[in-house]
C-alpha cells in the first residue's frame, strides 16, 4: 500500500461503511447509485444516505453507503472507507475516518500535510489525471472522475464488473454510447487500484442471497405509488424540499399508467399551486366534491396550511397531506432531516382541533400508509397527515417487496348516493345517526335533496348556521366522539415485548432502524429492553398499556423539544417522570450508537448504584 499504513486491519466482510465526499452538481449521484445497486444486486443488504446541500452546484455533499450483512437500515456511526473527492472538506473528512479505516483521495494533487493520520490507511488515486488523459471536454472529465472512483472501489471491495456493466446498460438503455464511456472510467479506476494496492481490502463484499424479495426505493416514490393505488385523481402542491419528489413520482407513475393510449386523456389532474395555502384549498375542494386528492409538503407548508386545516376539521372535509419533515424552525436546513412537525400536525390550526397522523418508519410503510390515509380520511371525514421525513423520503432504503391485494376497493366512508338520499325524509349533513360521531355526506351534482351548505362558521347538526351555545357545543362534542372512533381505526403500535423487561423504548417513524440495531447491541451489554413503535395519532389503547407496564421508558425522537414525548404526556395517562428523552436533532439521521450511548448512560449508573446498595445491604 502507498503512503502511511496502519498495520493490522480487521477482516470485515459485508459489514462496513463507506462515505463519499464530493461537490454537488458533479454527477456523483450516478456513481453512488451504481455502487449501491451493485452491492444490492450481489445479494447483500445495503443502506444509502445522501447528505446534500440546499444548492444546485458547487457545495459539499456526502453519500454514505453501509454494507450490512445483518440487514441493518440505520447509520452505524462508523466510516470505514472515506472517498475524499472534495478538497474543501478534506480536513474534516480525514478526521471522520474510524481508526483502522481507509482514505481514498485524488492524488493528482498530493496533500501529504493534510492527510497525516497514523491510524488509517491512505490510498492515493490520480483520478483527475486518469480522466484528463482518457476523456475530452471539461464536463465529461468531471463526471467521469466520479465514475472512476466507483471503479477504484469496485477493485478494492471486489465488486463484480459484469454486474456493473449490466447496471450501466439498464441505466443508459436509450444512450448506449454512455455505457462504453462509463465502463471505460470504471475500468481505469479498477485497473489502477489492482496495479497499485493489494485488492481486495480486508473490508470487502462477498455474494450473499439476502436481497431476494426486496427492493431499493425511497419513501417519496413509495408514497406516490400508494396514492396511485389508492385511486387519488387530484394532486395539488407547491414545490418544497424534501417533498417535491412525491409529486414528481406521482406524475411519473400516472403518465405511465393513467393515460389513455388512444385519446391521450389523463385520468388525473396535476396542479402546481401558487402556494401551499392554495394547494390544500384545492385538495379540500376536490375531496369535498368526491375525488381522492392529496398534497405533499414540508413544515413551512404545514404552517401556511393551518387555517384551511381547521376548516377541513370543523366542516369535516377529508384531505390527505404528506409532510416530509425537514429541519426547522423557519427555513432551517431544508436538506437535512428531523421529526420536528409532530406537534404542529397533531394540533394544526386555531381553535380546538386534533388531527389524525400516521408515522411511517420506512418506504414500505409509506406505500401502505398512503392508501390507509385516504381510507381513514374518507371514513372519518377529516384531514389525515402522513408524517414522513427527509431520511425516509429521499434516501434509498432496502424494503420488502410491496404487495397489492387486487380485492382492495377504496373505503369512501359514509357517502349517500341519489337513491339513498331519495329514501330519506330529509337529509342532514352533520347528524350522528350511527352513534360513532360520523355523519353522512353527499356530493354535488347528485340530487337537490342532498344539497347542503358547508361552512367553517358555527353550524348545527342539521347543517344550518348557528350562534347558539347549545347547538355549537353539540357539534364540537360530537367531533370528540369521532376522535374516539378514530382510535379504533388507526394502525396500532408495533410492540416487541420479547425481552419482558420493565425498561422500554418508545419511538416513531424513521428512528426504527437505529433502534432495532441498538437493541441488538444493548443485548451484548446485558441490557434487554422492550420496544414500542407508535404508528398513529390518536394513540390506540395498546400505547397506554405499554406505557403503564414499563417503569422506565426511553422516548427516542429526532427534534430538540421532545415533541413526541410531550404528545404522549398530553394524550395518555403516563407519568411524566418515567419518560426519558433521547433527542437527536443535528439534521443527520439518528444512529444506533447514539441510542446505545443514551440508554447506557442512564442505566449503567443505576445498575452501579443498585449493586452498591446491594453490597452495602
Amino acid at each position, binding site marked *: 500500500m502507498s503512503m502511511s499504513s496502519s498495520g493490522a486491519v480487521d477482516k470485515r466482510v459485508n459489514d462496513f461503511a463507506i462515505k463519499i465526499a464530493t461537490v454537488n452538481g458533479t454527477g456523483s449521484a450516478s456513481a453512488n447509485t451504481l455502487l449501491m445497486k451493485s452491492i444490492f444486486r450481489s445479494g447483500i443488504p445495503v443502506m444509502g444516505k445522501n447528505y446534500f446541500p440546499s444548492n444546485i452546484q458547487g457545495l459539499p455533499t456526502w453519500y454514505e453507503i453501509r454494507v450490512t450483512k445483518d440487514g441493518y437500515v440505520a447509520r452505524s456511526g462508523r466510516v470505514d472507507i472515506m472517498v475524499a473527492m472534495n478538497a474543501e472538506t478534506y480536513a474534516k473528512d480525514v478526521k471522520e475516518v474510524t481508526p483502522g479505516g481507509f482514505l481514498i483521495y485524488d492524488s493528482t494533487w498530493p496533500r501529504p500535510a493534510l492527510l497525516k493520520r497514523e491510524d488509517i490507511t491512505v490510498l492515493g488515486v490520480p483520478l483527475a489525471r486518469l480522466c484528463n488523459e482518457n476523456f475530452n471536454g471539461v464536463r465529461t472529465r468531471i463526471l467521469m472522475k466520479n465514475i472512476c472512483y466507483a471503479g477504484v472501489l469496485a477493485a478494492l471491495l471486489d465488486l463484480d464488473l459484469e454486474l456493473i456493466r449490466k447496471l450501466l446498460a439498464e441505466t443508459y438503455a436509450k444512450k448506449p454510447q454512455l455505457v462504453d464511456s462509463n465502463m471505460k472510467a470504471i475500468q481505469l479506476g479498477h485497473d489502477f487500484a489492482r496495479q497499485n494496492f493489494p485488492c481486495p481490502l480486508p473490508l470487502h463484499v462477498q455474494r450473499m442471497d439476502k436481497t431476494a424479495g426486496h427492493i431499493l426505493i425511497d419513501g417519496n416514490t413509495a408514497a406516490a405509488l400508494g396514492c396511485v393505488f389508492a385511486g387519488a385523481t387530484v394532486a395539488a402542491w407547491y414545490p418544497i424540499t424534501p417533498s417535491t419528489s412525491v409529486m414528481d413520482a406521482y406524475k411519473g407513475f400516472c403518465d405511465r399508467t393513467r393515460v389513455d393510449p388512444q385519446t*391521450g386523456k389523463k385520468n388525473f389532474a396535476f396542479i402546481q*399551486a*401558487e402556494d401551499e395555502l392554495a394547494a390544500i384549498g384545492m385538495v379540500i375542494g376536490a375531496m369535498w366534491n368526491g375525488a381522492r386528492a392529496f398534497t405533499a409538503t414540508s413544515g413551512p407548508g404545514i404552517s401556511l396550511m393551518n387555517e384551511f386545516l381547521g376548516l377541513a376539521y370543523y366542516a369535516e372535509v377529508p384531505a390527505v397531506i404528506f409532510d416530509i419533515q425537514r429541519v426547522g424552525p423557519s427555513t432551517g436546513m431544508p436538506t437535512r432531516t428531523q421529526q420536528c412537525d409532530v406537534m404542529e400536525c397533531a394540533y394544526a390550526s386555531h381553535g380546538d382541533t386534533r388531527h389524525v397522523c400516521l408515522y411511517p418508519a420506512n418506504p414500505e410503510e409509506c406505500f401502505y400508509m398512503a392508501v390507509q390515509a385516504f381510507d381513514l380520511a374518507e371514513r372519518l371525514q377529516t384531514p389525515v397527515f402522513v408524517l414522513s421525513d427527509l431520511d425516509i423520503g429521499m434516501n434509498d432504503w432496502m424494503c420488502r417487496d410491496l404487495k*397489492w*391485494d387486487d380485492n382492495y376497493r377504496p373505503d369512501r366512508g359514509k357517502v349517500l348516493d341519489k337513491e339513498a338520499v331519495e329514501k330519506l325524509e330529509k337529509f342532514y349533513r352533520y347528524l350522528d345517526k350511527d352513534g360513532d360521531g360520523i355523519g353522512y355526506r353527499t356530493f*354535488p351534482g347528485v340530487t337537490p335533496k342532498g344539497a347542503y351548505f358547508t361552512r367553517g*362558521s358555527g353550524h348545527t347538526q342539521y347543517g344550518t348556521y348557528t350562534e347558539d351555545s347549545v347547538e355549537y357545543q353539540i357539534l364540537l362534542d360530537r367531533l370528540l366522539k369521532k376522535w374516539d372512533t378514530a382510535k379504533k381505526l388507526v394502525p396500532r403500535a408495533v410492540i416487541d415485548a420479547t425481552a419482558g423487561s420493565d425498561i422500554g423504548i418508545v419511538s416513531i417513524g424513521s428512528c426504527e432502524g437505529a433502534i432495532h440495531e441498538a437493541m441488538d447491541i444493548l443485548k451484548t451489554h446485558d441490557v434487554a429492553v422492550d420496544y414500542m413503535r407508535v404508528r398513529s395519532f390518536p394513540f390506540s389503547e395498546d400505547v397506554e398499556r405499554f406505557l403503564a407496564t414499563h417503569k422506565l421508558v426511553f422516548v427516542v425522537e429526532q427534534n430538540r423539544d421532545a415533541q413526541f414525548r410531550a404528545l404522549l404526556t398530553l394524550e395518555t395517562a403516563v407519568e411524566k417522570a418515567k419518560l426519558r428523552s433521547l433527542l437527536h436533532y443535528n439534521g443527520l439521521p439518528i444512529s444506533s450508537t447514539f441510542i446505545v450511548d443514551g440508554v447506557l448512560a442512564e442505566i449503567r449508573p443505576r445498575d452501579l448504584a443498585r449493586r452498591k446498595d446491594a453490597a452495602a445491604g
Partner: protein
Amino acid sequence: MTYITKPKVAHPSLPRNELGFTRRDYEGALSTLCAGCGHDSITAAITEACWDLSLEPQNVVKLSGIGCSSKTTAYFVSGGHGFNSVHGRMPSIAMGANAANRALHYIGVSGDGDTLSIGLGQFCHAIRRNVNMLYIIENNGVYGLTKGQFSASADIGTKAKKGETNFQPPIDPVLLAMTLGASFVARSFSGDKRQLVPLIQAGLRHKGFALIDVLSPCVTFNDHEGSTKSYAYTREHYEPAVHADFVPLEREIVADYKEGETLPVVMHDGSRIVLRKLEQGYDPTNRIAAAVQIQERMKAGEYLTGLLYVEESESEFHDINATPDEPLNSLPYEALSPGSKGLEKILGRYR
C-alpha cells in the same frame, strides 16, 4: 344569516322553465344582509339567470370566501351544494372542486376585500389557470362586517363614513383580469338587473374563467356623500359601454337589432352573445384597445360597464390538463389502479 328558512310555496300561476321549475325553486335561505344592500339584488339576478337557463339546481355549485358577499351563496339555488370557505381562498376550493368534476356549474361569489386584498393571489392564479367558473365580485369599496374600513377597491379621494379620506390607489379587478389573460371580463351595477342577468347567463355558459365585477353599494357603511361607491354616485358615473344579450342555443334571436350596431359572439356550446355597442368606438373583442378606453374613462371618473372583453377560443383548465370528459370523481377504481400485476412491473425498476 341562514337560520331562517324561506317557506316554499309556489303559486300555480308562476311561470315555469323548461325543467318545470318556478323562480322560487332557485331561491335559497332568507338574506340577513341590511335592507337595501346591493348584494341582495345580485342574488336576485343570479336566481333569475339560473331559472331562465333551466339549470338543474343540483348541478349548481356555489363557492365563497368570507364577508358579506360570501354569505350570499346561501341565498340562492338551495338545491345546489354551497361551500363558504376561508377568507380570500375561494378560488382554490373552486379549482379543486372543478378538477374533481368538470360537469357542474361553478359560481364563486366574492367581495372586494376577499378578492383584492387577502385573496388577490388566488384570484390571479385562478384566472391564469382559466378555471371554468363564473366569478362574481360584489364590489362596494368597504369592509362591512368589520364596520367601514376602506377596501383595496376604494378610489383615491373617496370618504369613509366617519370622514376619513382614502389616499391609496385602487386595484381594479377588471383591468387586472384583462392583463392576466381572462377571456370574459364584465362590469355591472347591482341596480341594473337588465344588464346584469344576461351577463350572468353568458358568464355561466362561457368556457373558462368569467369575471363580473358588480358595483354593489353598501347601504350601511358606504352610501354617504363623498363616497364614490354610493348608489347616487354609481348611478351618475356608470356608463354602459356594451350591452350583452344572451341567447341560448335552443332559442331564436328575437330582439330587434339594427344592422351594424350588433356583434354576435358564438360560444363553445353554440349559444350566442349579442353585443350591442353603446360607447363610441369601443371594441369588446380587442383586449388592448378596450383596456385603454376603460382607463381613459376611469381617469374622467367614469366606469364603463357591460361585457367589456370577450373571447371564446381559449382552452380551459381541463383542456390543458387533458382530463377526460367523464368527471374524475366518477371514474371507476379499476381505471385508476395498476393492480398487482402493474405493481410487479413497476417494482422491476427498483431491484
